[in-house]
């Protein structure tokens, strides 16, 4: 017998508590009132006699409770033979159906191997068939029906998921804990190295689990289109650039033809030299696609082990440049110039800028613009601000630059942050201000190099009320603030866009700042990527638009969501390669291209010593089920006594309650009498 937590035995010292209660405390408590002590005398004998244990039974029960409680925490156990398994075991057949199993006839061979394992089972033997991808899919329960097990193996189809042996080990550990009899796991797989988890500890198995490997494929040379970099939206087809990366795994140096296919038509073909075990890039200029969503694909020549990864799909959307309204009162002519130059220089010509005076803009249809820019306006009429507020509430975006004219305003339009005063550099010895804090994770500030070396001579001090400060100057003046208003957002830049209040337009950070800000503001929210790996999740609705239906069409054109799912599901998992047409609950339509994880393209096999190590984490490294069963019979396992102690404790506690009630009732009545007297 032993204890899992022997230190808890120190709790037995609490036995002193009932001793104190019975020996000492009782001696001092409950004085009884009496009219006169005329005829009483103090006797030592009385006191001595009192110090004997009173209520022996109650005392014993209380001591027992304390001791049992301490024992319960110390968790005693005895070693005894594991529950008689009598040589019984559960056979688990795990068939890898990941993307790499599409190579050659690997999956067919795997299924044949699995059938062979099942064929060796005796009648009555229990087994389970599972399919291994990114997740473990149990195709049957633990059953002994050979027909059902075979049918489960036959039903396994190739998938585009990435195998994860870590998931398999976790599932097997859970199964071993629940079954409490030895497991014999047959892993039928190509044993791809890339399926290993980052930490070897994730592969550990229960001691009663035996692992048997059935390899159905060898390492083979394989070329793949590893990645394609293409814009999500195309505004000017002639200025678009598509880059494809071709990688070779275990391959010799070779020339590969790379083709760009648009809407099932080969648009361009190039030849690249792929070094041995290396990568090469192919670049295609121009992407002549029609308006709307287009299905793109980069293909290489086939003929290698895994042909499924010779194509890489991507989705693009052709749209017109979106209009941006720059509202300026004419005081900062260079601000417009710099802003327009930055938008034009961003590369993909996504925006067309128009300029209006505030009085003209008040009557303009603001809804036609992707976002608006207010450049240091000295006055904003109530009607114009209402229009702006209505525009932003409806999902529009506003970029506000503050400058010397803005100090006339009590607060920033729409965002309602109070304008305190202008903050000038050079007054107290500082010749300029610089950015000290910046949220580089924000989409608008991602590649601005923290505004390094940019000098700010003047910034308008704004007290943020509900806005979030994204960047601050070194005198803690907020530089960039953002506030969500209704469905839209307002971004406030507390300096001007010309090179008077700062020299930002003259720095390299200017163009990325403006282009990223424009992209962020025109996007209407954080858009999800349109090119995804299989097993990624796509968001269908935010939390606030329940009830509206979402819609997903799979590559075969079938609806993936039931009616109930369409109105309630928040996201869905992309389970296969191809193009998915998506309409989110907010009504936004998009085309999503899903491709298999390219780590599956590396068909390198796990070294034998690694496999041996993995198998050794289980109970039997011979891989023999019979031996595993025998070994477990000889093993004596610690068997916890806590359920017995717990039952005992409950019983003693109940008896204690009854006994204490019997003893203490008269005393309770005395107390009741005292209470009545007091009343």
């Amino acid at each position: 017998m032993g204890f899992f937590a022997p230190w808890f035995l120190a709790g037995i010292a609490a036995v002193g508590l009932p001793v104190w209660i019975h020996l000492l405390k009782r001696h001092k408590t409950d004085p009884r009132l009496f009219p006169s002590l005329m005829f009483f005398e103090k006797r030592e004998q009385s006191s001595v006699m009192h110090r004997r244990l009173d209520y022996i039974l109650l005392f014993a029960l209380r001591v027992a409770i304390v001791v049992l409680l301490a024992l319960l925490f110390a968790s005693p156990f005895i070693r005894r033979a594991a529950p008689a398994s009598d040589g019984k075991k559960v056979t688990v057949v795990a068939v890898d159906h990941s993307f790499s199993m599409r190579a050659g006839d690997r999956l067919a061979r795997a299924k044949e191997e699995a059938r062979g394992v099942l064929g060796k089972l005796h009648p009555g033997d229990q087994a389970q068939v599972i399919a291994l991808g990114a997740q473990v899919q149990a195709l049957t329960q633990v059953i002994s029906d050979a027909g059902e097990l075979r049918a489960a193996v036959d039903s396994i189809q190739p998938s585009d998921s990435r195998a994860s042996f870590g998931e398999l080990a976790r599932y097997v550990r859970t199964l071993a804990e629940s079954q409490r009899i030895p497991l014999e796991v047959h892993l039928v797989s190509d044993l791809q190295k890339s399926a290993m988890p980052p930490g070897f500890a994730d592969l550990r198995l229960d001691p009663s689990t035996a692992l048997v490997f059935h390899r159905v494929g060898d390492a083979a040379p394989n070329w793949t289109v590893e990645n394609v970099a293409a814009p999500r939206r195309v505004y000017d087809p002639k200025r678009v650039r598509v880059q494809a990366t071709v990688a070779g795994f275990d391959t010799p140096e070779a020339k590969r033809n790379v083709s760009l296919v648009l809407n099932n038509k080969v648009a361009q073909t190039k030849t690249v030299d792929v070094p041995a075990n290396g990568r090469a890039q192919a670049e295609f200029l121009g992407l002549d696609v029609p308006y709307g969503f287009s299905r793109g694909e980069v293909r290489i020549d086939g003929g290698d082990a895994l042909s499924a990864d010779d194509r890489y799909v991507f989705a693009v959307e052709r749209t017109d440049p979106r209009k941006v309204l720059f509202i300026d009162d004419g005081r900062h002519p260079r601000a417009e110039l710099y802003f327009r130059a930055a938008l034009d220089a961003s590369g993909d010509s996504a925006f067309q800028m128009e300029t209006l005076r505030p009085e003209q803009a008040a009557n303009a249809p603001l809804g036609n613009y992707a976002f608006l820019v207010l450049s240091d306006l000295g006055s904003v009429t109530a009607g114009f601000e209402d229009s702006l507020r209505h525009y932003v509430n409806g999902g529009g975006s506003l970029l506000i630059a503050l400058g010397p004219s803005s100090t006339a305003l009590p607060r920033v339009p729409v965002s309602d942050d109070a304008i305190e005063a202008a903050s000038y550099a050079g007054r107290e010895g500082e010749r300029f201000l610089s950015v000290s804090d910046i949220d580089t994770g924000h989409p608008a500030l991602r590649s601005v190099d923290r505004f390094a070396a940019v000098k700010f001579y003047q910034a308008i001090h704004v007290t943020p009320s509900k806005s979030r400060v994204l960047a601050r100057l070194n005198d803690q003046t907020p530089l960039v603030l953002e506030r969500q208003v209704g469905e839209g957002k307002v971004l406030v830049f507390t300096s001007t866009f010309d090179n008077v209040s700062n020299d930002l337009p003259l720095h390299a950070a200017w163009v990325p700042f403006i282009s990223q800000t424009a992209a962020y503001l025109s996007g209407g929210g954080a858009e999800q990527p349109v090119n995804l790996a299989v097993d990624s999740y796509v968001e269908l609705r935010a939390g606030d638009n329940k009830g509206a239906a979402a819609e997903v069409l799979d590559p075969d054109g079938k609806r993936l969501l039931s009616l109930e799912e369409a109105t309630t599901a928040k996201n869905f998992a992309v389970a296969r390669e191809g193009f998915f047409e998506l309409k989110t609950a907010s009504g936004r339509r998009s085309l999503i291209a899903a491709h298999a994880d390219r780590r599956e393209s590396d068909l390198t096999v796990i070294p034998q010593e690694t496999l041996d190590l993995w198998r050794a984490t289980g109970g039997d490294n011979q891989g023999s089920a019979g031996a595993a069963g025998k070994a477990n019979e000889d093993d004596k396992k610690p068997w916890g006594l806590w359920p017995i102690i717990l039952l005992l404790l409950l019983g003693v506690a109940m008896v204690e309650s009854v006994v204490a009630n019997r003893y203490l009732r008269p005393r309770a009545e005395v107390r009741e009498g005292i209470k009545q007297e007091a009343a």
Partner: protein
Amino acid sequence: MLQRYLDPAVLAGISGLDLVAKTVVDGFIAGLHRSPDFGFSQEFAEYRAYSPGDDLRHVDWNVFARTERMFLKRYRGETNCQVTILLDASRSMKYASLRAGVKLLEKFEYARFLAASVGYLAHVQRDAVGLIVFDDDVRQFVQPSSRQGQLARLLHAIGSAQLGTRTDFARPFAHVQQFLHRRGLVVAISDFWDEPEKIINTVAPLRFHGNELVLFHILDPEEIRPKLKHPVLLEDLETGDALEVGPDYVAHEYPERMDAHLEDLKTRAQGAGIDYFLIDTTRPLDAALREYLAIRKGRM
């Protein structure tokens, strides 16, 4: 049947001392003889011929107008006995024990009922009734009188009596002596927790003025025969002193000492011509009144 109503526990449930007193007294007062003395209270008895020296206020002038002879009106019920009740309100009177989980009547409550009943009875008898509530000094004093409203005053004084501190018979009894100019009956109701010699020496001088003295010794049954299962710490209600006592002592020595005390008190009282009655709080009140009436018969 009557006994049922006189159980102290039942009486404790009756609100109002007057009702308690009536309940106790009226049941057995019926048939009690009238006072042989005549007086000037309300109930007409007879005419008597005027003789010189009689009080002219009692002459019936209507009869004189008709007959030209002077007659005096005489009435029933008037006696010249004065009853003074001494009620002990010391803190020890607060004691009440438990019997079968039910709290008995407090000694003080019992004493109140007894005082009210004696007072009511005396009032019915047309006796002048007074009250002195005392602990270690006189706390309340109602001048003996047989006037109308005296019963209400008496009962109110009994009802509003508050428990005080310690018992000291010397001062209250000296006070009583100052007011007792007429012969009468003094009824002392107390638990008499003091030395018998001291008690008798204090109260005996009352006898010298021609008073009859009755001591009602009220005790809780637990005071006479306490029961302990285990050693306990006892706290004196009056002094607050605490003493640890064991069951053995309570079972053997205490009863002997208590019995000796009671016997001593009784003997000394009888020796001093004082009537002494030991009453425990479970005893029906009418029994105590019978004792009282037995004495009164001899005096009336």
